[in-house]
């Protein structure tokens, strides 16, 4: 518990502040010492904790999977290989189920999204104070360990997916086809003048639905994980409020963590499935 001198509000705020590296107001570069300072840094700053944990988890995933893939035998698979193959086949069947075009990128993309997001979300199950307290001992004052509670991480992935959607839309349908898709439907008329009038209306409708794709992807994941994290933080506050409430908090934390196992898997799965569906839509005229 880091609440020796902090109020509950400060405690929560402390937990929600990233370790930000950027340009200080006075012109020097360095780590922000408070949430306000981090905010002042604007766009040209980077969240070291988000980057560190997501890269670490991603590297862990890739190391583990590529090591297994390298030694994958076509004979009877062992325990680790079985596990990896199980995940790979699960992803493969999901992709086959929702994606009807041929594209070798989609399945590895879905695998990366699923496992990476799952691992990021999994950090949520580590009790909220453990890693921040350890890093405090190491002299690091802010440490937000769940990368998917940082909108930068979720928007980073969602924008990546969105760029692929745009790329494949234009590649498959051509610039004209893609623009037509944005402007000539859902309203259309045989009269060319009326059709011309429909173009802006269609564009507004279609553009909103197009832009909603990455935004909803990113915000759904971020919102779920952020809310989950917040509840863990609120439960952690109870530990400071006496023995009875502390014990009650412990029970609550256990319950919420168990329930959260479902959420973190579900969110990773939803992100993956929607990515596949969006890319499938990009490959088809409608």
């Amino acid at each position, binding site marked *: 518990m880091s609440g020796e001198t902090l109020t509950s509000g400060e405690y929560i705020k402390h937990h929600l502040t990233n370790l930000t590296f950027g340009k200080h107001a006075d012109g020097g570069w360095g780590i922000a010492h408070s949430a306000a300072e981090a905010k002042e840094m604007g766009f040209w*700053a*980077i969240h070291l904790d988000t980057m560190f944990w997501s890269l670490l988890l991603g590297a862990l995933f890739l190391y583990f999977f590529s090591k297994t893939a390298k030694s994958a035998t076509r004979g009877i698979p062992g325990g680790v290989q079985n596990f990896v*193959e199980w995940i790979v086949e699960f992803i493969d069947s999901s992709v086959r189920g929702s994606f009807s075009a041929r594209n070798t990128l989609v399945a590895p993309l879905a695998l990366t999204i699923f496992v990476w997001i799952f691992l990021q979300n999994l950090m949520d199950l580590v009790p909220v104070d453990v890693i921040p307290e350890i890093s405090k001992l190491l002299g690091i004052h802010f440490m937000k360990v769940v990368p998917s509670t940082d*909108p930068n991480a979720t928007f*980073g*992935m969602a*924008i990546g997916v969105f760029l692929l959607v745009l790329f494949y839309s234009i590649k498959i349908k051509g610039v004209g086809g893609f623009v037509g898709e944005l402007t000539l439907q859902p309203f259309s008329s045989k009269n060319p003048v009326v059709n011309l009038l429909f173009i802006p209306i269609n564009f507004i409708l279609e553009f909103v639905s197009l832009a909603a794709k990455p935004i909803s992807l990113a915000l759904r994941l971020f919102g779920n994980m952020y809310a989950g994290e917040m509840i863990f933080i609120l439960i952690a506050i109870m530990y400071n409020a006496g023995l009875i409430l502390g014990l009650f908090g412990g029970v609550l934390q256990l319950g919420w963590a168990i329930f959260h196992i479902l959420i973190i898997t579900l969110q990773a799965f939803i992100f993956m499935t929607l990515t596949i569906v969006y890319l499938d839509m990009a490959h088809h005229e409608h």
Partner: protein
Amino acid sequence: MNINLTLIGQLLSFAVFVWFTMKFVWTPIMGALETRKKEIADGLSAAERGQHEQELAKERAKDVLHEAKAQAAEIVAQAQKRAAEIVDDSKATARTEGERILSAAQAEIEQAANRAREQLREKIGRLVVAGAEKILRKEIGADVHQDIVTALAKEI
């Protein structure tokens, strides 16, 4: 909750991760899975083929066994026939041989009897002559039978 450079960093690392997964995770694992799938399919079809072949072989074996049984029966029948023939043959041969031996023996017996009869006749002749000689020696003399002698002499 500030949007900042982290976004770009995350985007780039996401791209690199996807590329890496595609190249070093997905392709080899799917390759291994495909190979195994193919091998299992091959194995299953081979097993099916083997079973089919085994059934055929069983059928063939049945046929062969059947044929062999028929052949064996035929051979046994032939052998029995042949044996009967041989027995008959040898019986016939034995009979003719026996008859031949019998007739030869009879001929020999006859010969021996004839010979004995000849010898007996000769001996009896001689005895008769000797007896006659003894009897005649007493009664016959040249003077007693002068007339017969002279008659004979005349005839010469």
